[in-house]
């Protein structure tokens, strides 16, 4: 037998109008109970039939309780926890019942005839069932051992129920609960921390996150300082845990200990005290800062930044170098007065040919050193290699080679320190990163400009055939067909004061072979004895070797080259013959410092020497065609212009001179004198710009722009000039007349 105390709580408000509903509900509940309807009915009937001896104290107690409970809803609420509506409960029902008991009578009195006829809407809703006590009944088979016992028990129980009414054993007793005075109790909790964490889901953030997930497994532990955003975000997200962080959202890869410890220190961590946190934070930030200053990226950035700042400073000059228009800065404050503005544009056009100094390559490193040679890079015509070395024997100090870039005239890109003064330089044609350097002590070294080390990749120190005297010129020659028939590719040719023209090859080591031993020639006193050997006729020599100072290979035929000596002789030689000269040119009375084939005319070459002159020669004429005397100082360097066939530049110790044969063969068209006390030492034309580079003894390489130089008709004119010369026989006496004829010819065109 199961005892079930069912409660169907009804949603009602205790007021007269709904009491009828209650009544019906209770009845309905009673009918629909699935437990023991008899019990409920009996209860209901007990209540209904009025106050009985049994029920009265019950109801009284109920009443008391309900009265007391009506005031305080809390106990009702606590009793009936799961009930959604607060106005219900056991006591409520019971009270309802009790009220019904009382109010039922009251309502009956109040009902009028009209009310009885009214149609009242009754809403029946099923409500929650609350199980208060559920002792489920058990059934046992009649044939079990315990059946007898159970039957006996049941029998006993029924008799007990019957005998209960008037039995002495059962006494009714009322109980009253003590209503303790309510007490207020406050509980204080720590303030609930609220933190707003926001994130903007940007496209790049998503991209980064996906990428990081992919590369998570293969990432190496790097100490990567994080940016502020991810730091604070992670601090918000990972407050208490201390071992997370590798897969935080939107952050960098890495899982180094450093990183996680940084995060723990920077996050709001309950374990660390505030002091410890600060200390570790400081240390870590210091370490990070140090790391920044050591990083490779900073070096790269500084490099770029240097160039950017330089660009700002030199922008106008560099634009002029390139031949671009110089645009005025529209934001610059204009301080010119109206008078100046009128004068300025007129002057430039009226000046005539002139040199405009743009800037100078120089830095502290090169100060005080003599510029001895310059060479352009073959691949990138903006890169310039400059060699610094003293010319005199007594002034020797170490030499350096600086590779300058057009983009930064204030500091060279590469600096190579050499043990001896640098006297010759050349960039390779085929391997553009190889730079050959010739030095005052005769050694030849090859540097790799791309490599970060400062050591030469090849040195002639161990070669048996190395020079014993300063190497004055170096040139890389591209030989398609060498003298022995098997050489292909580039060779390096050098000439030095010890009288040998040597070719170097990079095969197993640094191999060298002599191309020519320069022998001294006696000065031609008689026409017949052009080549005298052994000193039988003419001067007696101490040493048969002539000192070589310069050479130049013919651009068309790489087998033929010219060599200039200290005696003033120029010899035409061939790589096939290393004993004899093909030709000797006689004219200079001093050491020949430079020889240059003309880039436009295949047979014409220039030479400059210490006898204050520059001479123009044609290949098949022993005597010079033109002699240029313009100063009383030895001419150190001469160079043809790459754009004009008749323009060449020369530099003597005191001035830079630009000659234009189409204009004037007696005087240079431009003479530019540098600052006093500075001796100029070498000259180079720029291939990609209308500019000229001049090196001086103070370590500066000045860049000048050539302006107002005519260059259009020159090729035609010089060809006419040559054709007129050829029919004439060379005679020293007629030089001046010939020159004037040619001059008149030129001017007439």
């Amino acid at each position: 037998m199961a005892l079930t105390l069912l409660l169907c709580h009804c949603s009602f408000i205790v007021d007269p109008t709904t009491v009828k509903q209650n009544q019906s509900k209770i009845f309905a509940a009673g009918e629909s109970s699935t437990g023991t309807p008899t019990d409920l009915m009996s209860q209901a009937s007990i209540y209904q039939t009025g106050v009985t001896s049994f029920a009265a104290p019950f109801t009284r107690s109920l009443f008391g309780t309900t009265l007391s409970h009506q005031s305080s809803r809390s106990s009702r609420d606590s009793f009936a926890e799961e009930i959604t509506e607060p106005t219900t409960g056991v006591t409520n029902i019971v009270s309802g019942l009790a009220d019904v008991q009382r109010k039922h009578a009251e309502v009956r009195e109040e009902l009028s005839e009209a009310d009885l006829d009214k149609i009242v809407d009754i809403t029946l809703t099923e409500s929650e069932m609350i199980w208060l006590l559920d002792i489920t009944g058990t059934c046992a088979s009649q044939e079990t051992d315990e059946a007898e016992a159970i039957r006996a028990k049941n029998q006993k129980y029924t008799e007990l129920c019957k005998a209960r009414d008037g039995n002495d054993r059962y006494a009714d007793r009322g109980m009253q609960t003590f209503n303790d005075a309510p007490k207020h109790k406050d509980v204080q909790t720590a303030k609930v921390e609220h933190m707003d964490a926001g994130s903007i889901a940007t496209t790049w953030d998503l991209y980064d996150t996906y990428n990081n997930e992919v590369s998570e497994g293969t990432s190496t532990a790097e100490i990567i300082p994080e940016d502020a955003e991810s730091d604070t975000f992670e601090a918000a997200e990972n407050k208490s845990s201390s071992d997370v962080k590798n897969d935080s959202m939107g952050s960098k890869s890495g899982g180094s200990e450093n990183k996680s410890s940084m995060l723990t220190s920077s996050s709001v961590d309950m374990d660390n005290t505030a002091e410890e946190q600060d200390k570790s934070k400081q240390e870590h930030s210091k370490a990070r800062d140090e790391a920044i200053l050591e990083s490779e990226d900073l070096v790269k950035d500084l490099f770029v930044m240097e160039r950017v700042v330089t660009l700002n400073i030199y922008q106008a000059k560099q634009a002029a170098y390139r031949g671009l228009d110089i645009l005025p800065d529209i934001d610059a404050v204009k301080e010119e007065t109206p008078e100046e503005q009128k004068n300025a544009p007129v002057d430039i056009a009226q000046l005539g040919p002139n040199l405009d100094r743009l800037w100078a390559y120089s830095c502290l490193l090169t100060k005080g050193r003599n510029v001895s040679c310059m060479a352009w890079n073959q691949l990138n015509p903006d890169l310039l290699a400059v060699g610094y070395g003293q010319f005199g024997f007594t002034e020797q100090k170490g030499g350096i080679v600086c590779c300058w870039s057009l983009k930064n005239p204030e500091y060279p890109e590469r600096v190579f320190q050499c043990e001896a003064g640098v006297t010759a330089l050349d960039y390779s044609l085929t391997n553009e990163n190889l730079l050959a350097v010739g030095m005052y002590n005769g050694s030849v070294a090859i540097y790799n400009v791309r490599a970060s080390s400062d050591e030469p990749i090849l040195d002639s120190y161990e070669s048996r055939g190395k020079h014993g005297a300063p190497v004055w010129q170096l040139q890389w020659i591209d030989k398609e067909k060498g003298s022995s028939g098997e050489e292909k590719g580039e060779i390096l040719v050098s000439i030095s004061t010890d009288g040998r023209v040597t070719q170097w090859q990079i095969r197993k080591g640094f191999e060298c072979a002599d191309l020519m031993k320069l022998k001294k020639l006696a000065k031609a006193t008689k026409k017949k004895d052009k080549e005298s050997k052994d000193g039988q006729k003419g001067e007696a020599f101490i040493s048969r070797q002539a000192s070589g100072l310069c050479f130049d290979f013919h651009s068309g035929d790489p087998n033929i080259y010219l060599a200039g000596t200290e005696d003033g002789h120029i010899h035409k030689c061939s790589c096939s013959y290393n004993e004899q000269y093909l030709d000797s040119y006689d004219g200079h009375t001093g050491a020949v410092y430079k020889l240059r084939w003309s880039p436009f005319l295949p047979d014409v070459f220039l030479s400059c020497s210490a006898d204050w002159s520059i001479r123009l020669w044609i290949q098949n004429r022993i005597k010079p065609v033109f002699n240029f005397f313009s100063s009383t100082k030895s001419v150190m360097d001469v160079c043809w212009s790459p754009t004009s066939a008749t323009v060449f530049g020369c530099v003597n110790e005191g001035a830079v001179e630009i000659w234009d044969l189409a204009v004037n063969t007696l005087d240079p068209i431009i003479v530019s004198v540098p600052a006093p006390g500075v001796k100029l030492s070498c000259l180079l034309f720029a291939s990609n710009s209308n500019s000229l580079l001049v090196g001086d003894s103070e370590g500066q390489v000045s860049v000048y722009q050539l302006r107002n130089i005519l260059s259009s008709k020159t090729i035609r004119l010089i060809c006419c000039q040559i054709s007129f010369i050829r029919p004439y026989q060379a005679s020293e006496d007629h030089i001046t007349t010939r020159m004037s004829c040619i001059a008149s010819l030129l001017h007439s065109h």
Partner: protein
Amino acid sequence: MSSEVEDALKRIQHMKDVHGTIIINAEGTPVKTTLDDSTTLQYAALIHQLTATAKGTIREMDPQNDLTFLRIRSKKHEIMVSPEKGFMLIVVQNITEEK
């Protein structure tokens, strides 16, 4: 600090019209500077924000792209910023007047 870095910084600082150079770390606090404190802090904070916005703009258009250099030219100065992963290099140069 490596000598290369020191030399390069010195060279930039002594270039014509360079007002100052600042290196700030990833959070925007200056690591090395040649200007006075208040100016440095101002520059650091403002440029940091601006660079972040610029970088966000570039990457928003194409996440595979990235900001490599930022130049702000004003009447008086030009601010050149080179942002990197963990730091930022800022150089302020006065505008040279062309004549």
